């Protein structure tokens, strides 16, 4: 049994940048516990010496010629920004005022 605790859920939610309400926290704990219990069946398999698969189709280092091609216009790419100043994304302050 994975034995997921409320503290585990809070820790994971912080890592995932996901604010959870109190009722959501308990539901999430119970559901993660149940899903991970199901997943734990994989532990009975012997995978010693088996190489991992990261992609179904082996393709490595796909290269293209180093040529300059046109990019999207900046204004068009910024059109979906929730908040912007000129050509910048505006976000809440991230540094303390030290001055």
């Amino acid at each position, binding site marked *: 049994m994975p034995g997921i605790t409320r503290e585990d859920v809070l*820790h994971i939610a912080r890592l995932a*940048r996901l*604010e959870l309400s109190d009722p959501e926290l308990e539901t999430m704990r119970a559901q993660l516990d149940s899903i991970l219990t199901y997943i734990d069946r994989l532990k009975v398999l012997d995978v010693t010496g088996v190489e991992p*698969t990261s992609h179904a189709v082996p393709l490595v280092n796909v290269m293209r010629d180093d040529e300059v091609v046109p990019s999207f216009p900046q204004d068009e790419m910024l059109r979906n920004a*929730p908040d912007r100043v000129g050509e910048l994304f505006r976000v809440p302050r991230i540094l303390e005022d030290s001055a």
Partner: protein
Amino acid sequence: MIGRPIHELTEAYRRGETTPTAATETYLARIAKLDGELGAYLTVTREQALRAAADSDARYRAGKARGPLDGAPLAYKDVLCTRGVVTTCGSRMLEAFVPPYDATAIERLTAVGAVMLGKGNMDEFAMGSSTEHSAFKPTRNPWDLARVPGGSSGGPAAAVAASLAAGGLGTDTGGSIRQPAAFCGVVGLKPTYGRVSRYGLVAFGSSLDHIGPLARDVTDAALLLQAIAGADARDATCLPAPVPDYAATLAQGVKGLRLGLPDEYFIEGMDAEVERAVRAAVDVLRGLGAAVERISLPATPHALATYYVIAPAEASSNLARYDGVKYGLRVAGAKDLVEMSSRTRAAGFGAEVKRRIMLGTYVLSAGYYEAYYGRAQKVRTLVRRDFDAAFGRVDLIVAPVTPNVAFKHGEKEDPLAMYLNDIFAVPADMAGLPAISVPCGFSAAGLPIGLQFIGRALDEASVLRAAYAYEQATPWRERRPSLG
């Protein structure tokens, strides 16, 4: 011509019996009349469709039609970017997102004259098997409105089944094309991983995401795949392999083909009607000259658990981009960046997406990575090896798509019960193999059942050929839901 396959519709254009504009208007009128109840579309692009249809009319008049998809009215799952047309992914997070470019698959269909009717409903960020996880509305199954159409491509699948589109595109990460195709009684093809460019597809599980057709018949699926397949410099995972002429080999029959019937796809607890229909379909194939033998894919019982480690892990990483900074939703009033992202994600994502992000973050987190993610990647190798071994003996694998027919709305509230629906669909995603769902009958209650063919990597031609042979030998495609 409403409800006829694309190849018949465009043949009628060529003969001058109808026009793209007439067909498009009829489809739009049907959508206006029926989609309030069905919920297959999130956005209907009426003006754009009529403009594209008028252009197509002109090409037919000038004898310059661009092939069998010119003027075909289609529904695209709302996970595919469309330039200037809102692309929501079924999520509040992207409710107002207007992409600055088209997905390659859509760009290629537009280039051969296809007409976009609108954007199809889906489970949020393609996570789900019922389209109940759309943030906007559920889609209903045209065969029984109390039931789900499957998911996550439930919108376009229901649209094709209900004749609210002549065909469409869906995506399949863990069964999301084939399972709704089976539930709605249409054809759904998941091509080989990398066969179709994913440029402009909103990412869910990058090692598992596939784009493919939803169609009224196998011929249409072949035509749609033909248009979207092939190398694309904008997607480094898109394979450079040449694209064969799928229509050319469609009618070659199954005589001499070796089909494998895997023991692990007939399990305790599966619907007896589904098992009967699939076994009867296998008899039909035998009658058509295919050699059928029992095979074993022993890792199958572990594939779903493996999927629910790998797909959420990739999703948690892919969905980290929705931080409220560059595009999508932003919740106002946060005092710092972390709070802004955390509150934006809390407000923008629904319960299933949150669950998968949490699960994925957990299996990738320090102390658990090797036990879960590392192990799952190794089991994925076992799944792949099973298929490699099987394809040494047989040309195709034939199996059910789902263990049951469409279930009722609200019936699968336990997430795990919902996940188990994709138990037969997930292995082909894990191994990146081409797989199709083709209708193979109906339950006593009149609900469609799907037959699955899985092929070798890049052998869509054989998958289509076997599905076509079966389809032509059986009457299922002529049955229509009584809706409207």
